[in-house]
């Protein structure tokens, strides 16, 4: 049916690694989660680099439309998400501390795309007291929530942010890189902000996962249509980081029930299943999340977990910061 909603303004995209448009179509989908527009979207895969990206994608002045006020990364709170919030907090705190375990007790740490400050808050509560924690967030609504939590947030893009003279010991991009318009530019900016040997932690949706293989034609939760613009597997993420001046410390996959849950939800929604059944698969549904956590744990054992978790270090050999 032709919708009365306004169609988004869009723009063409290219591979964020090689800069070409040599790509083949992979999947086509809609904003199943928030229905912010009547458009459908196309995901293509670079035939050179394997990066999956949205082409065309919403133009930059549509961000307010595609990230509505009730967007979950702006409002992931205990009151609404209850036991899921508690479980996720505990799990993510443990994961973060493990990844950042070698840092000095007075480390300066930056979370790029910090959203409502969830991860920084976790580090503040469970990390060493001396850690200096800061965030960068483009969306003013999310930045405001993070500040209300008492977190120091620079509003804007990482490339433009004024972060002072001293460099960071670690930078985190937790489920952020897939949202960026130019991941290589962001990584090069981060590279300049890090001390030599400083760590970059990236967590992102994995196109090498089983759920991508099954649902990539339309319903894969990791597409998060149309908000995820670049999606990686281990080798394309490594290539991106290498070309941005990083050395690989570790790349592995990680268990997450979120994409599985949304893949099923999107399919049910798309096929017109009863609302109650669709709503059973959501971030507010502990049963579905628990079941898919167990299932994805097996995938992680087979190195095909739903998320990629990569730790890179600023290349020691790069004396001078890379040009943007």
């Amino acid at each position, binding site marked *: 049916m*032709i919708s009365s909603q306004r169609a988004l303004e869009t723009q063409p995209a*290219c591979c964020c690694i090689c800069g070409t448009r040599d790509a083949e179509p992979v*999947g086509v989908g809609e904003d199943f989660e928030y229905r912010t527009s009547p458009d459908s979207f196309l995901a293509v895969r670079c035939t050179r680099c394997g990066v999956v990206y949205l082409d065309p994608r919403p133009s930059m002045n549509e961000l307010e439309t595609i990230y509505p006020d009730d967007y979950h990364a702006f409002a992931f709170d205990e009151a609404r998400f209850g036991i899921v919030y508690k479980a996720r907090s505990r799990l993510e705190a443990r994961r973060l501390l493990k990844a950042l375990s070698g840092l000095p007790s007075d480390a300066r740490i930056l979370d790029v795309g910090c959203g409502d400050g969830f991860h920084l808050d976790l580090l503040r509560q469970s990390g060493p007291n001396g850690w200096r924690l800061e965030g960068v967030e483009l969306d003013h609504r999310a930045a405001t929530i993070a500040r209300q939590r008492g977190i120091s947030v620079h509003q804007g893009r990482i490339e433009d942010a004024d972060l002072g003279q001293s460099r960071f010991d670690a930078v985190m991009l937790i489920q952020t890189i897939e949202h960026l318009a130019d991941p290589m530019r962001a990584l090069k900016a981060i590279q300049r902000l890090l001390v030599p040997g400083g760590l970059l932690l990236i967590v992102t949706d994995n196109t090498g996962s089983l759920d991508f293989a099954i649902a990539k034609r339309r319903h894969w939760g990791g597409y998060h249509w149309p908000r995820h613009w670049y999606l990686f597997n281990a080798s394309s993420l490594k290539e991106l980081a290498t070309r941005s001046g990083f050395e690989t410390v570790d790349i592995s996959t990680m268990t997450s029930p979120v994409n599985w849950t949304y893949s099923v939800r999107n399919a049910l929604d798309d096929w017109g299943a009863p609302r109650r059944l669709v709503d059973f698969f959501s971030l507010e549904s502990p049963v579905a999340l628990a079941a898919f956590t167990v299932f994805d744990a097996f995938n992680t054992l087979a190195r095909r977990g739903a998320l990629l978790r990569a730790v890179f270090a600023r290349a020691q050999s790069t004396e001078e910061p890379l040009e943007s």
Partner: protein
Amino acid sequence: MSARPAADEAPIAIIGSGVSGLAAARELMHLGFDATVYESSNQIGGMADTQRDPDGFIFDTGAHFITNRFATAIGIAPLCRTVHRYGETVWSDGRAYDYPFGLMRNPRYLRGAINARIRSKRSVETAADQFRSEYGSEIADEVALPLLEQWSGLPADRLSPAVADKLPGGILATLALKLSARATNRAVAIGYCREAPQSANVWHVYPENGIATICAALTTELGDAVQTGNPVERVLTTDGRAVGVVVNGREIPAAAVISTLPVPHLAALTDEESLQPFRELRYRAMVFVNIMLRGCDVMPDTLTWTPGVEFPCFRISETTRSMPWLAPTGSTIITADFGATVGDSTWTEDDQVLEEMVLKALCAIVPSARRDFLGSRVLRSAFAYPIFDLAYEETRLALGRGTGIERLLSVGRNGEFAHILMEDSYWRTLRQVRALAAQLNESVQN
């Protein structure tokens, strides 16, 4: 988008403002190149033309198949509606058989098809051999070959076996897609695209305002890069390389030339020896007789193949069974397709005579056709299908390897001389244009 190396090169000249020409221009723009589209007529669209009747009927020239994936790629998905069902039947012995599997209800056809499967394969040299070895002599001789001969205007033993492309994915994949279409209430596209994968998530959609929507959307981005009423009179070449075009008697340098013209026309625009063999390639023309009727869903399915000698046309479609919005509520459009050669008796036949021929034949399928008749409109297409005549098979295959002229592409359905539908034509054009762009970038860098 990565910046292109600075180039003081002339724009790329594109000949023809159909879907392929406009898609090529848009892709070049996205890649940072200047391009100019030259269109000989006063309107854009080429073969993707829509005409409207004051009573609200929308007529597109010929059948077009658009998927949700293609509509999304070119940015018209919000202007399209989902096609909920699409099906084909064969009218034989006074009844309709679902195509292709329904034909197996006829025991003779089933026996013949099974025999063909288990018999050791003989060498296949013509389209007739191909159909007989694939489907058995019974289906081939009574259904497929009569249709093919009307459609192409040549006996099937003079046609290349390449006209009979197999279903991509085979029988099991096709059955699975048919089931998924039923489960999702969407006309899942089966066999309409070979350049990108089939899946339950790729289905037919159609623009609310007809096929012309596509070119209109592609053009909005291009602005004054599209010049209508400007026929290209010559394609200029030097040392085996395209270097410009002549438009209105004026020589215009070009970094490259992309033609969407029927390839014999392109060959006629140059002096290049290597292109001259392409002048012998021929296309089948089609006459589309659109009959407007009261009622809806009057035909057995969206498309009905009519191999019987009692039918002057080779297929009859009821477009509005799949796209009901193309006719006012309570009415429908039936389109009968006649194969023709430009200038022959069918091509030049009076519209009213054609209308009467169709009504007479249609009564066998729709007895109330005369009573419910509202009017007719006849449309003609001179370049409807390439004819895969074995007489020039080598030339056809040579074109598949390119024009042989550096920086001269011949793209799109007519330019490639290929049996490809719109989406395939689009992906193939993009691929060729991107390769050309890479070549031009390389030459700037060196």
